[in-house]
């Protein structure tokens, strides 16, 4: 979803960060800036040292460290948790391809006009309402355990398949609503001018409306990506051996929770950079919009 290079030059040449930077820095000399950075660093170090001392001196620290931060347990559980995390990332990768396609179909069906399209529209609304109304974990249990139990021929029966399907259906419903908001935010006049140059309804949507709609909701879509990256772990309830499941297995064997921390570290390692990229994109988008307003 995110470009390979986050530092893409802005679409429109305009007041770049240089100008803003100069304006921000104009009241402050470079030495003052350097001093501020130094003070910030020093106070952070002092804070961290004090916090570390206080925590490790507390009477319960040895027990906490043993339960959650045991280096041996970490080392021991790491390979399995990492292997499980690889499964999480696979689920993430599949979902991130499937969800936009489903969501787009739903959003477009929902924004159809004209009485002839009513059944399609009603179906989309029903689907979205149901998918959004059921707790995701319930949907995962329902599809992941329920459908394989039917033993239908010609239908996949793996927990992995149905877990991913449940996740994708639920997220597609949410994403469809985001896209619909984006579509609704495109002025009616854009549709009119697209139809006026002879485009069909579908062509107008494809070339005029959707590109603008998606641009409208990029920040919201990116937030969905961030939360999806973590929600893949919900599939562990089906027994799929992903990171959380592996950590759980280790814990139930050893009564040590360090494996959970190992899993948390792995999720953080992906989600924090992802959040930063999202922030960057959102800021860039806002800058682009304010440039337009000038």
């Amino acid at each position, binding site marked *: 979803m995110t470009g390979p290079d986050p530092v893409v030059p802005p679409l*429109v040449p305009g007041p770049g960060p240089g100008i803003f930077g100069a304006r921000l820095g104009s009241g402050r000399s470079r030495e003052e800036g350097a001093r501020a950075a130094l003070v910030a660093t020093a106070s952070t170090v002092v804070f961290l040292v004090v916090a570390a001392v206080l925590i490790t001196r507390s009477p319960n620290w040895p027990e906490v460290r043993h339960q959650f931060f045991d280096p041996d347990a970490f080392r021991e559980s790491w390979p399995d948790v990492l292997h499980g995390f690889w499964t999480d990332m696979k689920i993430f990768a599949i979902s991130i391809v499937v969800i936009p396609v489903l969501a787009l179909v739903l959003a477009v069906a929902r924004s159809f006009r004209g009485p002839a399209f009513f059944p399609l529209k009603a179906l989309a609304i029903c689907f979205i309402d149901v998918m959004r109304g059921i707790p995701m974990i319930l949907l995962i249990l329902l599809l992941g355990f329920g459908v394989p139990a039917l033993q239908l021929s010609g239908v996949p029966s793996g927990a992995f398949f149905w877990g991913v399907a449940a996740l994708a259906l639920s997220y597609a419903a949410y994403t469809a609503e985001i896209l619909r908001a984006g579509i609704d935010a495109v002025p009616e006049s854009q549709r009119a*001018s*697209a*139809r*006026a140059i*002879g*485009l069909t309804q579908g062509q107008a949507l494809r070339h*005029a409306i959707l590109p603008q709609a998606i641009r409208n909701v990029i920040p919201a879509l990116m937030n969905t990506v961030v939360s999806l990256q973590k929600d893949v772990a919900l599939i562990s309830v089906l027994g799929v051996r992903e990171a959380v499941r592996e950590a759980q297995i280790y814990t139930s064997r050893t009564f040590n929770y360090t494996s959970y921390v190992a899993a948390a570290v792995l999720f953080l390692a992906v989600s924090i950079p992802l959040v930063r990229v999202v922030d960057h994109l959102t800021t860039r988008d806002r800058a682009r919009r304010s440039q*337009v307003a000038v």
Partner: protein
Amino acid sequence: MSAGKLRVEGLVKRYGDRVVLDGIDLSVDEHQVVCLIGPSGSGKSTLLRCIDLLEPIDGGRVLLDGEDITAPGVNANSIRRRIGIVFQSFNLFPHMRVLDNVTLGPRKAAKVPKAEAEARAMELLDRLAVAEHAQKYPEQLSGGQQQRVALARSLVADPEILLLDEVTSALDPELVGEVLSAIRSLAAEGMTIVMATHEMGFAREVAHRIDFLHEGRVLESGPPSQLLKDPTQERTRQFLKRVIEAGRL
């Protein structure tokens, strides 16, 4: 009156209970320029949108070259390619460069090859003196430039008739002239034009006929020299008096 390039017969348009067009009759001959004037809310924009089949109509019909384009089963998309329309607020596609804005219609709706569509588009942009902005995005252009791009976009399919919906109303005063002079030269080349406008001076200069709309009807119709100087209807007189007071005539 002859068959005419465009004929509107008894056109009715309602929004809910509100009657916006209350039986409009109108005829435009080939190479004729007709200006629609009247207070806001009189139905000028709605009429133009109905003629371009952008709004479903509730009564009457529209004929283009004698063919009823409002009849059921008519391919509205192909009709719209024969009619050009330019809107008050330009309505360019903000995510596309100027050139792509102009070529989108021919390429997608008429399946014209890219190179051919671009050559034709550049020719038009050049004529409208915006060729140098072809690779820019609409937001980088002034209102007058954007409106000339919108003109190019509506002309690229070689429409048989051009509908202009208050195309200068959203422009800063100093940018109105450049758009009007583009329209003036189109009119001089024989383009058939129906133009809703508040630019009475321009209407007097280029229009062959002026129609005064009031509450969804054509209340009065005549050559500019007569209608603007010596209207027969009291409503028209009142409207023109206010226009004159505002310094627009």
